[in-house]
């Protein structure tokens, strides 16, 4: 039985890897994400963001609020390119629904 503690399940990033990132000087969700891929998976950090923020807060001695909400970008949730192409966002003809 391994003692691995997984923080980001989508990208299988362990607590140990997050701690290593903190020790290497990362001070934000964004920095940790770029180093470890935590929060970069299918769910876009829905469960791990708060866990990583808590580790940041404990390590740096700053409130959790300082690190949240992290970067949020379109699209909210996974979207196929077809869905975006359907929209004709620049204007022009309306979709028929």
């Amino acid at each position, binding site marked *: 039985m391994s003692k691995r503690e*997984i923080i980001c399940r989508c990208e299988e990033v362990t607590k140990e890897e997050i701690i290593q990132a903190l020790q290497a000087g990362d001070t934000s969700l964004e920095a940790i994400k770029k180093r470890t891929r935590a929060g970069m998976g299918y769910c876009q950090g829905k469960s791990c963001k708060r866990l990583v923020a808590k580790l940041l807060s404990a390590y740096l001695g700053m409130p959790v609020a300082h690190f949240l909400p992290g970067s949020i*970008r379109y699209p*909210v949730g996974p979207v196929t390119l077809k*869905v975006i192409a*359907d929209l004709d966002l620049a204007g022009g003809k*309306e979709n028929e629904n």
Partner: protein
Amino acid sequence: MNKFDVIVIGGGPAGLGAAVEAARLGARTLLLDENSRPGGQLFKQIHKFFGSKEHYAGTRGFDIGENLLKEAASLNVVLKLDTRVWGVFPGGIVTAYCGEKGLKFEGKTIILATGASENVLSFPGSTLPGVITAGAAQTMVNLHRVLPGKKFVVVGSGNVGLIVSYQLKQAGAEVLAIVEALPQISGYAVHAAKVKRAGVRILLSHTVKEAIGEKILEQVILCKLDSNMKPIAGTEFTLDADTLCLAVGLNPRVELAALCGCHLIYSPVLGGMMPWHDENMCTSQSRILVAGDLAGVEEASTALDEGRLAGLSAVQKLGLRNFKEVDDEMQKIKDRLTKLRQGPFGEKRQLAKQGIISMKIPKESCL
């Protein structure tokens, strides 16, 4: 075709309340929900509600949901299900998809009622099959009539943890213990008394140290916490369980609000990051309103009333009705909300809400 006075995103109690009020006062209203059935968490709530008659005291959650759906239908709310919103853009453009089809709508006002997501904990073994959240357990048991396990350990003694434990017992499962990190029970005494009477023990100042299992959960190691919430060495003990159910709070789903440019604030009492809003549920963006758990995690009755308030507020913004008339109706709801936020638990939320409303926030550009 796709233009609406009010677009409500999320069809839980807040979203339904908002859509019903907006439509009742004559707004052309669209309600979008990502699920195949609207009602949000209401349909998982098989217990009777507390409170006054206006708050459906004595009615079960799913009946409240059914009544709201009927009301929405009779008021010609356009309801689009299985429709997931992935963006809100300047000009009130809402982008969504249903199946493989991309959709675009335009709203003069947009009410975000996206609810909250469940918090999780991490510990060695926390990703083992058998470790689930309380909401998942409730969905499986109360909606799909499937018992996810036989022997449960529940983490968290808030109302969700207490109610889920009781419902698991009712469904025939064994609940070995409710584990609470704090030295006191977090939920209502009436719920706690009920689960205790049902023979469930509540372990205060305890936490999960580890989940153990070859392929699925087999054992849970618990330990005691000291007054600083640090584990006390040597106090570990093991329970044989096949399901570990996490009921450790919720946090507002702020993604859409954040992308809309709504000013976000942090409120530990109300679940964490959330969009700032005023007493009429308006955000820092003139077109965008919020309601329900997104505007601070509370419970279904407050969500429903906040939704109604947001619906009326949108109508007022649009100038569809006499300002004063709508204002009077809004005041009634505000008074009801104040009544709901009483008692040792409600009071904290009332104070947190007041704090948010009275906050000075930077004026931002309009979407």
